[in-house]
């Protein structure tokens, strides 16, 4: 008996029956636990339904060979987006739950226990940053950037797949925490000593550590991939100052990922060293110093803000130029502003901990550096405004989101300047004012941009346009919802409401909290409208198809190929003679001409190594969370083994014969010739087949 228990203990580690979500509800059937258990049940049910459906439809082979093992940057980009949408749905539900709790918990304990509430704001933040915003931008860059620079793929397609599956693995760990055990209550920043073993002996902080580690390593590798791709794989003639602006912002984002992810990895791994090996980096005893963690975390955290925002700036630059039918105003100044923001972002991290106790001159220096970042950002806003000036502006969904961004982001920036003043920050730090501020930056600065980019490039990825009507409904919900949800938080923050609070005691807060709840629900409706938009658009895909590939009369190289693009992107690598290459080709009537000669194209073969590495690492980390040392070891062994085995494979590419490339290209050219050129005002009608009529 006891030896059987011993074996079980070795197999299950710290996991017991009480760790399972339904057992916890059984033991303690409060509303809070029932909600938590319901979430766990939803995860299990979702998994069962998904697996069941795939099996019923017999789609496993298709999903495995066409998607999971694919090294195609476009498919990897799309998979990133799918991950982001799944995680977004969870994090949004959590946000609404927190708003409900705070709205009812004035002088009343409300629905959720403090511990549950702590898990909610921790997972909400962790998911939104690492598993929504990061995959969204990684997905968008993966899809669009190689097309924009005229490349066939990213520099390291196999590593791209590893990055994707590591990020997916982090998402799996977060979902697993709903089913097995609990998540951290230490906030998305996970400050020790609270997250140390002495105060938090459970598995929560461990889940946080390993999920974030997976994401940060994946993002660092992605950064290397993007930077090298842009540095070395631009098509002939694509000089630096001819790059589309989205590519520029992708490049700067990649640089930030390369240099800003390591501090996060160091922070989480040193915390793990404290928790697993009894070391004293951030403990209270024996020489530990938690301020080191805060410093490390924000060395990552501040550049991270620009990792999140820069790609959206790139999207806005593309969208505003396209839908104003004008070349970007002040291209050079936009590029300089982007680069300056990138560099300055490494000089301001201290403004996240003005109150930690350093002297006033140090605070002042970082405060001034922070305000300085406002300047290049302001330059950009003017650039976009002047781009629209006297342009042929069409208020399509992405354009509407861009406009909402400009107004809202400037508001948020103004509150940022307020917060950058250390004495003011001392008054409002750790209040809902701060929460309002960063949501005010990240929702327009990242999410709106990603939605705009999604709508803008969707026809390129799938060959049909999204429903405009539902896009506008989503727009109204997102923007109105944002203002309703977050403007009250400024008021509450100034009135002294602390963030991350499970229960308030001032009845004057209640009306504002209720307005904020309404806003959150409206944002939820916005998400739902996007889902309906996708459903409606898929149903109407034949009416809205744009196979020729240029539905918006846009100017970048990505629009010069069919929609959806072939695996190798370009039948012949384009030669670029100036900025906005495709515009000039349309203008000179050379956009839809066959090439003189077609060549064989060498593309990477599909590979299961990326999936195996990513998921084995996840298994290893799951084992570490629960002290299942056998699983940790097995996961590690499989990871290393796969990496080594892959290095012995020599037959990793396949040849697409020139004849096949030529046939495909000629077929597309015939389609372009047969299509009706559509002038810009009619681009939202079903007549649009993706061939734009270029006004002379």
């Amino acid at each position, binding site marked *: 008996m006891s030896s059987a228990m011993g074996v079980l203990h070795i197999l299950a580690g710290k996991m017991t029956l009480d760790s399972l979500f339904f057992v916890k509800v059984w033991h303690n059937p409060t509303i809070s636990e029932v909600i938590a258990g319901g979430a766990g049940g939803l995860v299990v049910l979702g998994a069962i339904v998904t697996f069941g459906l795939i099996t019923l439809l017999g789609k496993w082979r298709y999903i495995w060979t066409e998607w999971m093992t694919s090294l195609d940057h476009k498919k990897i980009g799309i998979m990133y987006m799918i991950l982001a949408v799944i995680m977004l749905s969870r994090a949004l539900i959590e946000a609404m739950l927190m708003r409900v709790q705070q709205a009812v918990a004035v002088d009343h304990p409300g629905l959720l226990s403090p511990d549950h509430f702590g898990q909610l704001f921790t997972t909400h933040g962790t998911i939104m940053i690492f598993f929504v915003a990061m995959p969204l931008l990684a997905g968008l860059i993966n899809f669009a950037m190689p097309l924009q620079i005229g490349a066939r793929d990213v520099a390291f397609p196999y590593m791209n797949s590893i990055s994707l599956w590591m990020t997916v693995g982090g998402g799996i760990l977060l979902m697993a925490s709903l089913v097995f055990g609990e998540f951290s209550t230490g906030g998305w920043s996970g400050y020790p000593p609270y997250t140390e073993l002495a105060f938090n002996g459970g598995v929560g902080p461990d889940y946080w550590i390993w999920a974030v580690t997976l994401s940060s390593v994946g993002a660092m590798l992605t950064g290397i991939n993007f930077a090298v791709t842009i540095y070395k794989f631009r098509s002939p003639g694509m000089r630096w100052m001819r790059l589309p602006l989205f590519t520029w912002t992708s490049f700067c984002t990649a640089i930030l990922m390369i240099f800003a992810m390591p501090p996060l990895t160091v922070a989480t791994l040193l915390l793990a060293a404290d928790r697993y090996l009894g070391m*004293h980096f951030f403990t209270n005893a024996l020489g530990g*110093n938690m301020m080191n963690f805060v410093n490390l975390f924000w060395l990552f955290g501040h550049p991270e803000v620009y990792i999140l925002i820069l790609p959206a700036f790139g999207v806005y630059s593309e969208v505003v130029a396209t839908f104003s039918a004008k070349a970007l105003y002040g291209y050079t100044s936009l590029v300089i502003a982007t680069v300056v923001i990138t560099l300055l972002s490494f000089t301001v991290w201290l403004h996240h901990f003005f109150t930690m106790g350093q002297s006033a001159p140090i605070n002042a220096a970082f405060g001034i550096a922070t305000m300085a970042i406002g300047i290049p950002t302001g330059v950009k806003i003017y650039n976009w405004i002047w781009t629209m000036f006297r342009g042929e502006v069409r208020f399509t969904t992405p354009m509407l989101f861009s406009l909402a961004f400009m107004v809202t982001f400037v508001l948020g920036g103004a509150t940022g300047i307020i917060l950058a003043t250390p004495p003011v920050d001392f008054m409002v730090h750790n209040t809902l004012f701060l929460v309002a501020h960063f949501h005010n930056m990240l929702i327009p600065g990242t999410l709106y941009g990603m939605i705009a980019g999604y709508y803008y490039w969707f026809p390129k990825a799938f060959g049909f346009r999204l429903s405009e009507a539902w896009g506008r409904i989503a727009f109204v919900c997102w923007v109105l919802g944002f203002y309703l949800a977050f403007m009250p938080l400024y008021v509450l923050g100034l009135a002294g409401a602390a963030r991350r609070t499970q229960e308030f005691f001032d009845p004057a807060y209640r009306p504002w909290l209720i307005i904020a709840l309404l806003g959150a629900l409206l944002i939820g409706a916005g998400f739902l409208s996007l889902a309906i938009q996708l459903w409606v658009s898929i149903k109407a895909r034949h009416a809205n198809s744009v196979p020729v590939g240029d539905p918006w009369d846009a100017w970048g190289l990505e629009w010069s190929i069919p929609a959806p693009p072939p695996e190798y992107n370009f039948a012949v690598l384009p030669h670029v003679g100036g900025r906005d290459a495709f515009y000039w080709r349309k203008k000179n009537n050379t956009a839809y001409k066959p090439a003189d000669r077609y060549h064989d194209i060498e593309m990477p073969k599909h590979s299961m190594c990326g999936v195996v590495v990513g998921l084995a690492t996840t298994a290893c980390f799951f084992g570490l969370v629960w002290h299942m040392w056998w699983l940790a070891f097995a996961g590690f062994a499989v990871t290393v083994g796969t990496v080594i085995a892959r290095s012995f494979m020599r037959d990793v590419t396949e040849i697409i014969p020139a004849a096949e490339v030529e046939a495909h290209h000629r077929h597309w050219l015939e389609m372009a010739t047969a299509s009706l050129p559509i002038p810009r005002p009619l681009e939202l009608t079903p007549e649009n087949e993706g061939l734009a009529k270029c006004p002379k």
Partner: protein
Amino acid sequence: MSEVREPELRHAGLNLADKPREVREQLESDVFGFWVFLMSDAVIFALLFSIYGTMESATAGGPVPQHEFKISSAFWETALLLTSSFAYGMVSLSLKHTRRLVWPALWLGVTFCLGAGFLNLEVHDFLTMFHDGATPERSGYFSSFFVLVGTHGLHVFSGLTWILLMGVQMALFGLDQRTRINLIRLGLFWHFLDIIWVVIFSVVYLGALAR
């Protein structure tokens, strides 16, 4: 980027000049990408160094580095790793100038032995310190010391594993393009580790012993 280049030491033996553009781009970016990775790794070491710096006085009443570090073993470790870096230089040189497998394989073996010697000394050092009660659990100072130097040691260990694997690959595939690229990357890695070690012996060992 398109001008014709002399064969160079930094792309030893690849003879980039006579390859078509796309192949050349791929080869160059393979090496360049590894450089970028190393820089990211350098940031990790830089952070570990700065944490070590902030923890220098955090011995918490336990053992102090002046008594735990031995200048002789630090010196011999340095000598071994430095010489191994030179030995790897000979690998690159023979890759560039001969078509035969023997020389690179031989020098790779020398590199491996020197690196293994280094690691052996380091582990021995660590065990002695453990015996004295200078363990990572004892104080913040020794946590930061063991993680900083241990991370370097782990890198050396993976470098040694990599050398072994390259040996097997050379036996299996000869000096094909992939093997050559990986040998170049391994070289960057190995020289990089030596640079990190220069900073470690100066800042950590000599810095503490000078007091």
